[in-house]
């Protein structure tokens, strides 16, 4: 069960419309290392986790990623809602307009739709947690590249918050991985 809280985890302000920036930022909405992939990956891996710590962590980080998905969606919406057709064309979003108008969609920076092939659940907790740690690093790197591309200081501020969260999640997943390794060792000996 999830309860919705009618506010963002971190406030989103933008300096003005910026269609070009939106086209890049949307990759963290529906791209390979984006927030949708992160949330769905973690929430789905919960079921086959063996320890208290790992189940709790995947549940809670998977939930936080949904809050991040909403933050990224809000950035893209605010950057594009008043865009003219000419501006959409100039930013390479004519194709997006043809399929979705100014609606959001789960796509990467070049328009590829989201696919479950981005994520995995191996059933092996070591493999899954290692994937999760890699996912956090890939997301951190993506936010880095987006910060390099951003020409809106307000958006950059939000991207920096999101980048920091990836670092914290990576740390916590590392601790959970240690926990699982200890658990599997004990199982072998007793």
């Amino acid at each position: 069960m999830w309860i919705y809280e009618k506010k963002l985890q971190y406030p989103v302000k933008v300096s003005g419309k910026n269609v070009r920036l939106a086209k890049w930022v949307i990759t963290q909405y529906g791209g390979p290392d984006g927030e949708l992939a992160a949330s769905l990956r973690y929430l789905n891996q919960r079921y086959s986790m063996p320890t208290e710590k790992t189940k709790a962590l995947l549940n809670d980080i998977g939930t936080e990623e949904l809050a991040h998905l909403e933050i990224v969606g809000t950035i893209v919406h605010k950057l594009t809602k008043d865009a003219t057709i000419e501006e959409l064309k100039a930013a390479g979003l004519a194709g997006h307009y043809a399929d979705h108008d100014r609606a959001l969609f789960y796509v990467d920076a070049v328009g590829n739709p989201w696919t479950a092939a981005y994520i995995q659940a191996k059933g092996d907790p070591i493999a899954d947690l290692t994937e999760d740690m890699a996912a956090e690093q890939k997301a951190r790197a993506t936010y880095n590249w987006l910060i390099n591309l951003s020409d809106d200081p307000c958006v950059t501020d939000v991207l920096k918050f999101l980048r920091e969260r990836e670092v914290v999640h990576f740390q916590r997943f590392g601790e959970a991985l240690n926990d699982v390794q200890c658990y599997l060792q004990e199982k072998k000996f007793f």
Partner: protein
Amino acid sequence: MAELEERMHLLKRIREIEFVALELNLYLDTHPDDTQALQHFNRAADELAELKKQYEQCYGPLLNYGFGKNPGNTWLWAQTPWPWEM
């Protein structure tokens, strides 16, 4: 205008305390016996509950499905702006 400012200030407080609680929550997931972190977590949870109550009394429910009360004679949940509209 003053009302909007007050509302935004209270929302900012809620956001801050909620972030403290979230961070401690993730930390406690992997450090369940850290009693100091537990104390901080419980203190944040108390403060958060108080702030949310205060917010909801003035501006309507922050949470859906009955996790927040709706004061007055109209359903405020659907009337207050959505996060992407603020």
